[in-house]
């Protein structure tokens, strides 16, 4: 009987946040959870239709438009926005920028869950998702950029899991495991940067095959570089966005001193993101100059391009620059959110608006495609909340207060 009681207390302590089951269930009755339940009430039936009647039953994807919202938002934007893990890991562990240490764990968790839910989202889009391991174990298409993407996303997901392990083992109380998981940090970080460099740029390189389909203002031999640089911008601004929300929502886990520190961190990140976004802005113009595409700027697609580079690259860059000079973390946060929208906008343009721009049969997502995307993001947020509420992500584990990992 003693073991049963132990088990009960383990469940109570680790999973139910120290409450009894009825208490815990009662604590779930919040307005936020009702919204989530409503989303899932739509998302789960859509999922059922997708996996019993096919992709066509819930989407407007077609033979002319084989890729849509799920690739543009769930995959391309999702991977870019999950770049925070490797960006912050590099800054803190490799470059020694210790100031940012408090946000490394949440950044790595965001990255890990980001990639994990990119793969979940991809399962809706792939015709036979159960064959996901095929490029790894069955048939090797080594001439394909997609082969690289597949391998790297799978490997990097594993690496990020290892990077997340110290928090997991602290929560489980496995001291020796925790020790070993901390020791591989530098190796994992370096490996993660290599993988990220390659697959972030590879997502852009996928479109090198779409020369006759993608509008010249976006089709460029530099598209791998565009994707890589903008992914770092996305990673940094996403860390600003995520840490702001986390400190609001999970404020009870964070000390007053940490709130102060976050403002400082936000200003620093804002400065960096602003500089990098400006670099990206310049690169986009080098792309136009390289292919001498100036004459397209006065066309309808040119308007989209100008809107993107001025409205969603230069503008948030200048705002964050100005805000970090004025020591205004609030405005940095506005700029960061703006920049995030800009990078999603870029991925949507490349994969939907500027792709097949000259065709009659244009793609507009079905509402159920949005349903899938929202459902996947919602489950991702739920998982993030579940982990942050239980594991030492924002706070320090009592046993490791002095350990600086």
């Amino acid at each position: 009987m003693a073991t049963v009681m132990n088990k009960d207390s383990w469940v109570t302590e680790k999973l139910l946040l120290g409450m009894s089951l009825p208490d815990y269930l009662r604590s779930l009755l919040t307005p936020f959870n009702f919204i989530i339940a409503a989303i899932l009430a739509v998302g789960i039936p859509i999922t059922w239709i997708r996996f019993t009647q096919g992709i066509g039953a819930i989407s407007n994807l077609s033979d002319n438009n084989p890729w849509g919202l799920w690739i543009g938002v769930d995959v391309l934007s999702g991977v870019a926005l999950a770049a925070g893990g490797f960006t912050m890991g590099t800054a803190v562990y490799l470059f020694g920028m210790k100031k940012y240490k408090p946000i490394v764990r949440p950044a790595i968790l965001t990255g890990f869950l980001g990639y994990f839910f990119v793969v979940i989202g991809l399962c809706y889009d792939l015709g036979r998702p159960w064959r996901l391991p095929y490029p790894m174990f069955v048939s090797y298409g080594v001439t394909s950029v997609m082969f690289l993407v597949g391998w790297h996303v799978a490997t990097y997901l594993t690496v990020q899991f290892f990077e997340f392990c110290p928090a997991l083992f602290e929560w489980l109380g496995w001291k020796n495991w925790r020790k070993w998981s901390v020791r591989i940090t530098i190796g994992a970080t370096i490996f993660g940067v290599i993988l990220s460099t390659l697959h972030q740029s590879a997502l852009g390189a996928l479109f090198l095959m779409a020369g006759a389909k993608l509008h010249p203002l976006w089709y460029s031999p530099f598209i791998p570089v565009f994707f890589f640089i903008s992914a770092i911008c996305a990673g940094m601004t996403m860390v600003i966005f995520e840490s702001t929300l986390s400190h609001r929502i999970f404020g009870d886990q964070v000390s007053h001193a940490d709130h102060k520190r976050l403002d400082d961190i936000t200003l620093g990140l804002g400065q960096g993101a602003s500089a990098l976004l400006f670099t990206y802005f310049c690169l986009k113009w080098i792309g136009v100059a390289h292919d001498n595409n100036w004459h397209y700027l006065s066309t309808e697609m040119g308007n989209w391009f100008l809107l993107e580079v001025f409205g969603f690259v230069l503008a948030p860059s200048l705002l964050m620059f100005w805000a970090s000079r004025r020591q205004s973390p609030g405005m940095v946060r506005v700029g960061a959110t703006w920049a995030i929208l800009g990078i999603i906008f870029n991925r949507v343009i490349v994969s939907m608006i500027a792709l097949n721009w000259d065709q009659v049969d244009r793609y507009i997502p079905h509402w159920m495609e949005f349903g899938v995307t929202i459902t996947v993001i919602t489950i991702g947020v739920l998982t993030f909340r579940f982990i942050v509420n239980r594991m030492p992500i924002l706070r320090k584990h009592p046993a490791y207060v002095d350990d600086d990992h």
Partner: protein
Amino acid sequence: MSLKRRDFLKLSTAAACLGVTSTAHGMEDFKGWPDRYGMLTDTTLCIGANCRRCEEACKKTNKRSLEGLNLSDNSVFDHQRRTDPNSYTVVNRFANREDPENPIYVKKQCMHCNEPACASACLVRAFTKTPEGPVLYNKDVCIGCRYCMLACPFRMPTYDYFDAFSPEVRKCTMCHDRIIEGKIPACADVCPKEAITFGKRSDLILLAREKIRHDPDRYQQHIYGEEEVGGTSWLYLAGTDFTNIGFANNLGSTPYPEFTRGFLSAVPIVLTVWPVMLTGFWKFSKARERQEAGPETDTTVDDEKGWGDGYRHE
């Protein structure tokens, strides 16, 4: 394709190691399987209306549903059709600028490229350029990412969007099984106007040139597919500019696999150089840290414990 790339990688690695410029092999082009077959469609011969027997023969040989197929229903020409999972080939009608009384009919299907974009784009090597010429698809490895469809410059592959359990990419096979049996592709076999000719691709190019030379008023001086995207097995002749009958003129003559070659070649470089460079950054920041901390700290002791340990204590 894969052979080529492997050779290229081997060569570049060897050249990098030895510090020599060895281009003799690297400049050697694979011109394609020498005796591969092709098809030549002469759009000036196709009658289209009340015919479409190629569509019917194609459906039959590929065991596609014949439901809704009415060869005498010419209203299908009122709009442009494309290939779909049940139709590996379609005939479309285009207005004839030179002779409005006689519209132009164009049969479309997979072009069976010499260096197929789909084959180089596929991450599980589901496409093969056979020595006989047809580009074939292997449903047993396909994961359904549809990158082949994005990559195809002719937008020919189609997908079973309404099959949840065993969806396939579907496209013309140039009747590879019939070719192996010594027969000719079903569409060419059935065409009452001999608008489709089957033969060795090299012979077909000579035939097409001969036709143009013989009747320069009837034909444009252009064999579509001879140069496009590095050449295709399916070739076309036309009496009007190809852009008037739905052929893209912006595809260039570079084989599509070339577009990603540069990027893929950079991959091994990143894999080799990044680890050293990043470790260097790490060592550099460690050294700076130690300098800032002064000689009295225990960081040196930590470092002796080895890789990955020093950062734990500051």
